[in-house]
């Protein structure tokens, strides 16, 4: 084989015990951006392998949930949907919600299911949860196609502000998901209880989020407390941007944004702090 001369000067790495508050070293993640890309690519490639329906699952899941919700909350319980046809009303919310839940499910297991990588080689561990959260965007994009069809069917035309508002609300959903995912994935390394608690957590969270119902049923004095749930801000934002329902960005949204950032930053520090013990405890 060809002997290649090493053209660049090798860099020296200093390995020492980390003390005190962990530093975030986000540049590490940037250096390994190609690995993030490859892990996302792997997740997507593998996700629907050896299934009969393949990527259609990305559509079937939210559509079935929408139909069930439509039957129970619209047909039986007659929940208000702010004057928007209920199917599109709930489907609009199910998109970011599905992204959020899939992110939590995949990311919380990302370290434990790749334990052979974690115990054998060095790479910034953040790569794993970040890639699992981002890989959900593909399913999101696929199921978004159905939303567009629904909008044609119900003749809903979004205002122009959807162009800037939707990406921002999507970003907020990712920030919220990543923050929670970092906490869960790091805890899961030591306490696998996370695997068992997560289904309940997402179930309760669904009820605390205006997916099946409208946020307008929450009385105004509880609105700020209610928006401590960042997904409430995301779902209201999606509905406002796409369907023009609700009031648009207000103080409650900023509470959601603030909480999301707080969870993300604290999650990053917690993850970094625990990272050094991952290989030993996993």
């Amino acid at each position, binding site marked *: *084989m*060809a*002997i*290649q001369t*090493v053209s660049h000067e*090798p*860099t*020296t*790495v*200093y*390995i*020492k*015990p*980390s003390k005190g508050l962990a530093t975030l070293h986000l540049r590490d993640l940037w250096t*390994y951006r*190609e*690995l993030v*890309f*490859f892990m996302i*690519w*792997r997740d997507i*490639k*593998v996700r629907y*392998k*050896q299934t009969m329906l393949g990527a259609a699952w990305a559509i079937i899941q939210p559509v079935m949930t929408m139909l069930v919700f439509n039957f129970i909350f619209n047909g039986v319980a007659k929940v208000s949907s702010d004057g928007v046809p209920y199917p599109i009303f709930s489907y609009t919310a199910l998109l970011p919600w599905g992204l959020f839940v899939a992110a939590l499910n995949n990311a919380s297991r990302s370290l434990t299911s*790749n334990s*052979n*990588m*974690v*115990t*054998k*080689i*060095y*790479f910034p561990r953040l790569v794993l949860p970040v890639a699992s959260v981002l890989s959900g965007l593909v399913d999101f994009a696929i199921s978004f196609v159905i939303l567009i069809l629904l909008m044609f069917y119900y003749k809903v035309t979004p205002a122009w502000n959807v162009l800037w508002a939707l990406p921002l609300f999507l970003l907020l959903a990712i920030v919220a998901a990543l923050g929670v995912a970092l906490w869960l994935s790091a805890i899961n390394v030591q306490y696998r209880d996370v695997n068992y608690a997560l289904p309940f957590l997402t179930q309760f969270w669904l009820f605390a989020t205006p997916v099946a119902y409208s946020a307008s049923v929450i009385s105004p004095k509880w609105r700020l407390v209610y928006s401590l749930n960042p997904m409430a801000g995301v779902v209201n934002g999606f509905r406002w941007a796409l369907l023009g329902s609700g009031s648009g960005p207000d103080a409650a949204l900023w509470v959601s944004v603030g909480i999301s950032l707080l969870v993300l930053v604290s999650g990053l520090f917690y993850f970094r702090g625990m990272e*050094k*013990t991952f*290989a*030993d405890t996993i």
Partner: protein
Amino acid sequence: MTIAIRAEHLSKRYRIGAAQQKFQYGMLRDVLTDTFTAPVRWAKSMAHRSSNPQLPTEKNFIWALNDVSFDLEEGQVLGIVGRNGAGKSTLLKVLSRVTEPTVGTVSVRGRVGSLLEVGTGFHPELTGRENIFLNGAVLGMKRSEIERKFDEIVDFSEVGQFIDTPVKRYSSGMYLRLAFAVAAHLEPEILVVDEVLAVGDAEFQRKCLGKMGDVAQQGRTVLFVSHNMSAILRLTQEAIVLKKGQLIKRAPTQEAVDFYLSSGLAETGERLWGADDIPAMAAPFKPIALRVKDRSGKVVDTVRSTEPVTIEWEYQLDAPVTGLRVGMYLNTMRAEYVFTAFDTDDAKQFEQFGARQAGHYFSRCIIPADFFNEGRYSLGVNASSFAVRRYFMDDNALSFNVDITGAPGTQWPEARQGPVRPRLNWEIEKVE
């Protein structure tokens, strides 16, 4: 010369105790009781912690590495020897940044690659081609670098025609070759090799060693961990000996290996049976110990193939047994039988000892010199009365290493096929 690795006072502490022994036998009863008492234990430990705020006591910890300091110059090949648990793997893990040291620092100049991590990040559903890219990225290669080396990797792996087949359809040999090909083309400044010789067939092992030699000749730094002393001797100029996490010797390889083999640091070469290890149905037969001894009668883990080896089984009979035969199976580590033999195989011996009184016994045999090939062998034991009853059996009671220094054919640095390596009297005749 520039220093490639400088380790200073490197120490790594691990917590030991109940958590690691838990579920060793995986019995459902254990799991259930443990599960239901878990909250109680947790509450107790919390209560204990609040009343006694000190750190957990020293006995709950083990220092896997203890104040290890060394420098390694660029382009050197260093062997690391020590028995299991001496800290060899922990040292490599710290050097490759998988785990953090508890105390001390290391500076490492350049990229560290490892031949232990072959196939890490491989996904069975992906094709060979896809896995090359994925695995390359996991090992820290740039996409452009992988693209440039892609053809070379495929050639080296010899899986060319299956490159677009999911690797779950590969044979284990193909899988390993592909994984190794990626790791081998990482071209790190520092290469770490841990026991890679334990996997794969002889041909593959030869390739690994060849690759290691190439890497060393290209002037890169290599750290080589192995239980195989002849491989260490062949491939390294210098070696360090680790004992219970401490670096106790650094010397030219021959000296370090001699020190290691002669100081009794090597594995014990002895298997003891406690009362808990013997099933009730073995009675009246009670195994006590199985030992591998060298020519001088010392219990050793590594024997030399040029010297005779004594296998000794010590046992107790609590009642007289008729028709008893006590013996062993010799296996290679790949679970191929080499031979089976019993102490009463000889008809006269059987007449004399077929019916044995209660008492304390030793059954010994000597395996002659020039029998074993290099590598690790496993001993199984069996005590039975033919067609009547099997008292005791353990397929893998003890394993030991064979060092082939001085064995026939060792002037050629190659692995020899087959479990035995006899010294044959060759006659060479030239016909006019």
